């Protein structure tokens, strides 16, 4: 049964390091919001930090990097189908948005509402 197993006798250090790294990455992604990065810088930083965090959780905390290939493939291959779903829905979404603007006369870029304007500056 236990081939690669009894795998958890990794030194405690790797867990602590990954833990620390997740803290740092979370702080960085919060900093993206706090420092008000916008546009392409914002999106790419958010995505990079997200993927790094997800990767470390799956690989180390969930021990996937120490599993055998048959199990890894079973877990990671099916979600690839989801990327198609995302792709289809993005293209569909853009079409629906264009239709709403072009044929229903809805605004192309509505002015966003600040919370302080609704609730008053102090609440």
């Amino acid at each position: 049964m236990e081939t690669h197993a009894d795998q958890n006798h990794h030194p405690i250090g790797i867990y602590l390091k990954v833990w620390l790294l997740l803290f740092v990455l979370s702080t960085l992604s919060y900093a993206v919001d706090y420092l008000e990065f916008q546009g392409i810088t914002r999106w790419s930083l958010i995505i990079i930090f997200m993927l790094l965090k997800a990767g470390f959780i799956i690989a180390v905390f969930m021990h996937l990097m120490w599993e055998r290939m048959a199990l890894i493939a079973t877990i990671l291959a099916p979600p690839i189908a989801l990327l198609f779903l995302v792709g289809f829905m993005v293209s569909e979404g853009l079409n629906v948005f264009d239709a709403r603007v072009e044929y229903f006369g809805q605004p192309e870029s509505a002015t966003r509402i600040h919370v302080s304007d609704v609730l008053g500056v102090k609440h």
Partner: protein
Amino acid sequence: MSSLDIAESKNSQEFVEDWSADKQTYHVPWGKAMMWLFLVSDTFIFTCFLVGYLNVRRTTTDPWPYPSEVFALELFGHNLPLILIAIMTFVLITSSGTMAMAVRYAHFRDKKKVFWFMAITAFFGATFVGMQVFEWSKLISEGVRPWGNPFGAPQFGSIFFMVTGFHGLHVSIGVIYLLIVASKVRRGHYDKKDNYEIVEITGLYWHFVDLVWVFIFAFFYLW
């Protein structure tokens, strides 16, 4: 590239061996394989939610509320954007760390440490849910509903309650799961067969809950 090159890599050789031999394919305890399959299916559910969110966010012509303002909190006289969500993120990551410790000590059969690390993990999980309750009641008191809100697109409320509600449900179930397993560990239930696999399986579920939060945090709160 000859087929020999591919076959020589250790991983692909094992892959072929596991699938071609007339025997068990996954060399892990069945409970662990089943938990992984459940988590793969749960991945599909959460992705459907997030894709639904992506779609309404793309298609709505109403202004999307500023998440960092909606989830801002006044702390020590400063108005901090998104601070509650950041704290919730840290709490959940910390709980993942303590869970990893519990799994590690389960391999050394250190019952006391396993129990305490699982109990701490459950405590952080409960803290997370408590903060989510606070966040929900704050937003509800400000008039955010699944069908509308004063800050912009009505879809914001539907997505918020659905996605964080479903995730919070997962965390709550996880807390109960952790407490049950932790108390069984303490009572020595798993010593009878000297089988502590359940701790690792519970850990997989718990890390998955943390993993889902990583995506919700990025796409819903930061986007």
